[in-house]
């Protein structure tokens, strides 16, 4: 489904990935995270080839995916979901505490909901939990797949702010979005995908003013 995609993300950057439904954004994300085996090409992280590694190895290398459908553990409490987020890293108690603190600072509502089952949270809260869970492994690179999907505008706005905070705290983020307006407003660079290929790339400002992008993704 993907065909000669080439993109790079620098350390500390927030890069966005635009494209319509079915353009291959999710597949790309899942391939990087190791859920889908690529038939060709290479994925390089910190000068090391991580192509074809299993998902659990990739998490250990510092890449965490917050997937499109969240994939939480619905019948486990919120706190357990978070602790499982750090499963791959074998952190000691002290580091775990730091991780919880960071997550709760970012999303205070999760502290209140600590003992509640993840499946009973509202859509927005679930999205926050999914992001927080991905952050628990202290990733260098966070892959965010459609975090705004199906959420109310107010919640989307809050998520947008949180993403900015995450980047500010030093995590590199690759954000995939259908909602190009939001994505371009916070990212530094962006790529546009169509039927499995990257068709456009550039810094966010120029992408935002590109007439094609405006017409196709910004609805202007």
């Amino acid at each position, binding site marked *: 489904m993907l065909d000669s995609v080439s993109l790079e993300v620098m350390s500390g950057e927030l890069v966005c990935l635009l494209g319509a439904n079915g353009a291959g954004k999710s597949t790309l994300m899942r391939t990087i*995270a*190791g*859920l889908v085996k690529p038939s060709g090409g290479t994925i390089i992280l910190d000068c090391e080839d991580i192509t074809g590694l*299993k*998902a*659990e190895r990739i*998490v*250990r290398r510092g890449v*965490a*995916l917050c*997937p499109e459908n*969240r*994939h*939480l*553990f*619905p*019948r*486990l409490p919120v706190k*357990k979901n978070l*602790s*499982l*987020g*750090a*499963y*791959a*890293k074998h952190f000691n108690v002290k580091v775990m505490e730091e991780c919880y603190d960071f997550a709760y600072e970012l999303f205070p509502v999760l502290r209140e909901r600590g003992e509640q089952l993840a499946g009973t949270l509202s859509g927005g809260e679930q999205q926050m939990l999914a992001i927080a*869970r*991905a952050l*628990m*492994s202290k990733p260098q690179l966070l892959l965010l797949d459609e975090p705004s999907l199906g959420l109310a505008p107010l919640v989307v706005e809050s998520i947008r702010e949180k993403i900015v905070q995450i980047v500010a705290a030093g995590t590199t983020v690759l954000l995939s979005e259908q909602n190009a307006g939001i994505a371009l407003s916070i990212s530094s660079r962006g790529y546009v995908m169509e039927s499995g290929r990257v068709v456009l790339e550039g810094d966010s400002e120029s992408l935002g003013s590109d007439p094609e992008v405006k017409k196709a993704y910004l609805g202007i």
Partner: protein
Amino acid sequence: MSYFFQQLVNGIMLGSVYSLVALGLTLIFGILGVAHFAHGHFYMLGAFLVFFLSVSFGVPYWAALVIAVAVFCLVGVGIEFVYRPVRDKSDINAFIVAIGMLLVIEEAVRAVWGTGNRRITNPYPQVLKFAGITLELQRLIVIGAAIVLIVLLHLFIKRTRMGSAIEAVAQDREGAALVGISVNRVSILTFSVATGLAAAAAALAAPLAFIAPDMANTLVLKAFVIIVLGGLGSIKGAILGGYLLGVMEALAIAYISPAYKDVWAFAALILILAIKPNGLFGGRD
């Protein structure tokens, strides 16, 4: 009234075995979505191993039990590898693999130990009498040991890292992979735990009755009824369902009809599923 309690105790005894067997099945179904129809045959094999150790080799009962459980934890690892190629295929493929497996096991046991019934000497034949109830000590041990095993399993799943990994994979396999849990390893672990539990149940209950190559055929059917009733993949459902079925059966023998004792459970299941298509306790879909 004491007759009622007598049959109730019988039912709880039966239910203990059902619960232990159903627990393993539900764990496996939760992790892999595999209807492990050969599970009962590993129970049978466990009983024969205890028979072999204690009767042919004179190993003391409890030592035989521990050895059987340990051996079957390893056997579980092997089972996982047989299922691995069909894990993501349709339900029925795994089912057929299970049938193939159970044919091999049953005939192997027939070849080694013959087709007839065998008996393991009851290690605790002492008869207890209290409140009008009479039962052998071994039956009480089955009930007690089942509770201990269930509590241990609960602690394992709720309190340990590996236990949480099992729950995570059962609830969302992709989510589990994303947080760095190796689904393959968890699935091996699950088969190991489940098969060990079956062997434990067999070692406990086998001295009370006959052991035979086809002893587990109805047992495995009932275990399936239990886990469907409790909601596929639900641990709580398997435990409650197991005891419920055991008690129901004993009371059916006592008050309705011994001949139809096996029917009530199955009929109840059909009715419950017609009303609640995902089982009494919900469960995954």
